[in-house]
């Protein structure tokens, strides 16, 4: 009788151990999304005015893509800062299969030069981080296929004749795998960086 109980305890303990192992190694984890991005290939520009074939230039790499406009004072700089923190964490952990990109939904004002200034003043390390802008229609198509809303608000003019307007916009960072599929979406400005890092690790090299 006693040996039967002992055997049962042993079996249960082994099963529990297996379950713990399964969860901790991440093999059992599934990311919530697995859908094509629907993006048609286009030519975009980075902060140096170099042509980036999007999304093909990122095929074979995990891509973390966020959406911003540089005239945004509050939300978008938070997103950019989070992207920078993620970049630093990836570097610390020697994860080299990830590319980070921030796409402007305000291409009319966010020229490559403006994007470069926006990045430079924040000491962006462009090694695996790029800004993207382009033709308004191309950008609009990408935003539509990725469900990103960006609506310009009322325009005002300052005394010096400067035109001022802000966007109401989706606050997002999207995780795209090396096959170009959307695997998860996060808030950009207030986000759980560790969760993004974990998701990236789950995808693996």
């Amino acid at each position, binding site marked *: 009788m006693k040996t039967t109980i002992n055997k049962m305890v042993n079996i249960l303990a082994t099963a529990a151990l297996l379950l713990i192992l399964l969860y901790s190694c991440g093999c059992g984890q599934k990311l919530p999304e697995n859908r094509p991005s629907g993006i048609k290939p286009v030519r975009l520009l980075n902060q140096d005015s170099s042509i980036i074939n999007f999304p093909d230039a990122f095929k074979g790499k995990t891509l973390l893509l966020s959406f911003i406009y*540089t*005239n*945004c*004072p*509050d*939300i978008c*700089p*938070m997103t950019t*800062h989070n992207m*920078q923190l993620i970049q630093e964490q990836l570097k610390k952990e020697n994860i080299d299969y990830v590319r980070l990109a921030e796409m402007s939904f305000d291409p009319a004002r966010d020229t490559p030069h*403006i994007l470069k*200034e*926006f990045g*430079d*003043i*924040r*000491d962006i390390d462009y090694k695996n981080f790029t800004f993207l802008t382009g033709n308004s229609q191309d950008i609009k198509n990408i935003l539509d296929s990725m469900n990103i*809303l960006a*609506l310009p*608000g009322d325009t005002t003019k*300052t*005394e*010096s004749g*400067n035109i*001022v307007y*802000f*966007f*109401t*916009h*989706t*606050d997002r960072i999207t995780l795209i795998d090396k096959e170009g599929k959307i695997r998860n979406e996060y808030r950009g*400005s*207030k986000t759980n960086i560790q969760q993004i890092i974990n998701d990236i690790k789950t995808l693996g090299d």
Partner: protein
Amino acid sequence: MVLFLSLLALLNSFSPKVKIENAWVRPAARGMNSALYFNLDNVTTKADALYKVTSKSAEVVQLHSTVKNNDGTMGMKEIKQIAIPAKSVVKFEPGGYHVMLINLKRSLRPHSKIEFTFYFKSAGKVKVKAIVKKE
């Protein structure tokens, strides 16, 4: 009379006012926009309100609040003034209240400083130096 007035001024400078703490600004290039954040600590027993901020480093300075819409999108709206109840702290922080700096007249590099004048209903005019930092 002069003595009386200067004594009054001296007394006034010692009387408790709303304290402005941890003022900081995001880095931004000349011609772009930025935001100023801080804590307002009303140590007094009287409510006050912040209704204006000015700076020589920006063409337009406004009080703003970031708002989240029902569809999840984010936007901002201008606000006329912000009440600071007695014995309370009001935070201007990322994703919430901020002082919006439009069309900067100079680049704000990390670690540099920028000066502001705050206008309170009761406490009057207060000069504040903010530090530029990435956060």
